[in-house]
């Protein structure tokens, strides 16, 4: 077990267009072990989504090397699944056909995998929505369907770009719980981008605080074992939660000042 789930070595990104170039990332380096849950937090524009896009294989680094499970990222990998703030459900397909979209694109849709996807949907309490269309679902239900679609490809690495920032608080807690439970069972690695510090603290093993423009990693925070093992709602109520939250908050504020 000496291969990392993610290995970033001095990865930079410069976006080029006709007018100018945008330096989105200073050289950043970090490593994530298999099975770890890591959050990326930081003010908007500091390059969090860029980091995820690089790992999803949607864009290439301008320099440096990025490896996923020991393999350099040159294209979207079959071991990775990616989830966004917007649920991106296809309005013209039923829930049943939406959750197998990833399997379809990866050429892995068959009776068995479709069955597994339906079981996952059932597990998330959405069995009755199988034949419904997305327009018939509430926002929270839609995001749960999107979560099923993300997990249906059985990824080893989950990339989450503010996946729960558009749903109400209650749904968010529910989804967080489903996610952590699901991750534990399947031993997946996860990298979560969020601007919600509570979410980062209650879900992750480790938090990378980013800042600046171009962005860099300014601080790494290990989350204590007692918070990690508790479920997201319980963790939020623990005595050690607040001090860490305040520490993270200060860290972010000091970054805001450096921007000014």
């Amino acid at each position, binding site marked *: 077990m000496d291969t990392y789930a993610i290995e970033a070595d001095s990865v930079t990104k410069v976006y080029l267009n006709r007018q100018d170039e945008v330096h989105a990332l200073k050289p950043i380096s970090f490593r994530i072990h298999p099975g770890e849950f890591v959050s990326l937090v930081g003010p908007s524009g500091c390059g969090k989504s860029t980091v995820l896009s690089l790992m*999803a294989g949607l864009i290439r680094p301008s320099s440096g090397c990025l490896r996923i499970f020991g393999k350099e990222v040159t294209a979207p990998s079959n071991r990775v699944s990616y989830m966004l703030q917007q649920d991106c459900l296809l309005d013209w397909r039923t829930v049943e056909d939406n959750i197998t*979209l990833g399997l379809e*694109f990866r050429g892995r849709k068959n009776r068995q995998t479709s069955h597994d996807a339906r079981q996952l949907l059932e597990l998330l309490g959405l069995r009755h929505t199988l034949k419904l269309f997305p327009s018939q679902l509430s926002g929270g239900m839609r995001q749960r369907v999107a979560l099923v679609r993300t997990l249906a490809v059985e990824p080893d690495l989950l990339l989450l770009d503010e996946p729960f920032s558009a749903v109400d608080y209650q749904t968010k807690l529910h989804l967080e719980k489903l996610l952590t439970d699901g991750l534990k069972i399947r031993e997946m690695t996860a990298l979560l981008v969020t601007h919600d510090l509570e979410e980062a603290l209650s879900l992750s093993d480790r938090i990378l605080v980013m800042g600046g423009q171009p962005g860099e990693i300014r601080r790494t925070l290990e989350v204590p074992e007692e918070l990690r093992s508790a479920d997201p709602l319980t963790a939020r109520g623990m005595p050690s939660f607040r001090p860490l939250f305040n520490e993270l908050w200060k860290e972010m504020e000091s970054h805001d000042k450096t921007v000014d």
Partner: protein
Amino acid sequence: MIKPLTRWLTRGAQSEIHADYLRRHRLRDWGVGIARAAILILFVAGWEVSARQGWIDPFLFSSPTRVWELFLEMTAKGELFHHIGITVSETVLGFILGTAAGTALATLIWASPFLSRVLDPYLVILNSLPKVALGPLFIVTIGAGFGSILAMGVAITVIITTLVMYNSFQGVDPDYLRLARAFGANRFQLFSRIIFPASIPDLIAALKVNVGLSWVGVIVGEFLVSKNGLGYLIIYGFQVFNLTLVMMSLLIVAVLATLMYDMVSRMEKRLLRHRNT
């Protein structure tokens, strides 16, 4: 008398206030319907009376009874359906072919960004060109007949469809494409599973516009070729100063164009019933 009427107006009511609400809304619906019918009746009656009283020249403007008599006469002889059949098939084929060709062209330029940039100025020129001006060209190359008229129906719809559909393809939410690409979709899958289905509402909007446009193309085509069809009846009636024939053909065109538009609208409702917008 009043009781059954009230009951009918409030059918399906859940409560007193709901009944009141339903009664007011249904009465207003009736008002709208009656006003609509009144306009039509007044127009036809006014036309008839003015023609009989000599307020307008019946020779120029004909009259409803004359139009109706001509309609019965031509229907009895069967020649009317011959003309209607020709014009309708030209129009339907024209807008279907035009929409299909436009969508195919849009797909082609979506597939090749290079081609898209190369063709851009030509599409703009072709789009600004009044397509009916191409009529004489079609007649010389294809011959004076069905083919030329069909070509007009296609020419008038194809470029605008290309532009609209290409825009629609470009306008698909980039997050959907990111998601599909992260799932390993290739360009063909991207197009067939995401981009094209997402653009179907715009395709139907184009179809609705094209119904009207292809009528223009076909009628002008028939003006030029002048052998068959409702456009031919209009130009012929004008040449022999039979304005009753012109009026009747115009009315038939209006009715048919409305029916076609209505059919596309129904199809739209069916196809888009699950979508949000």
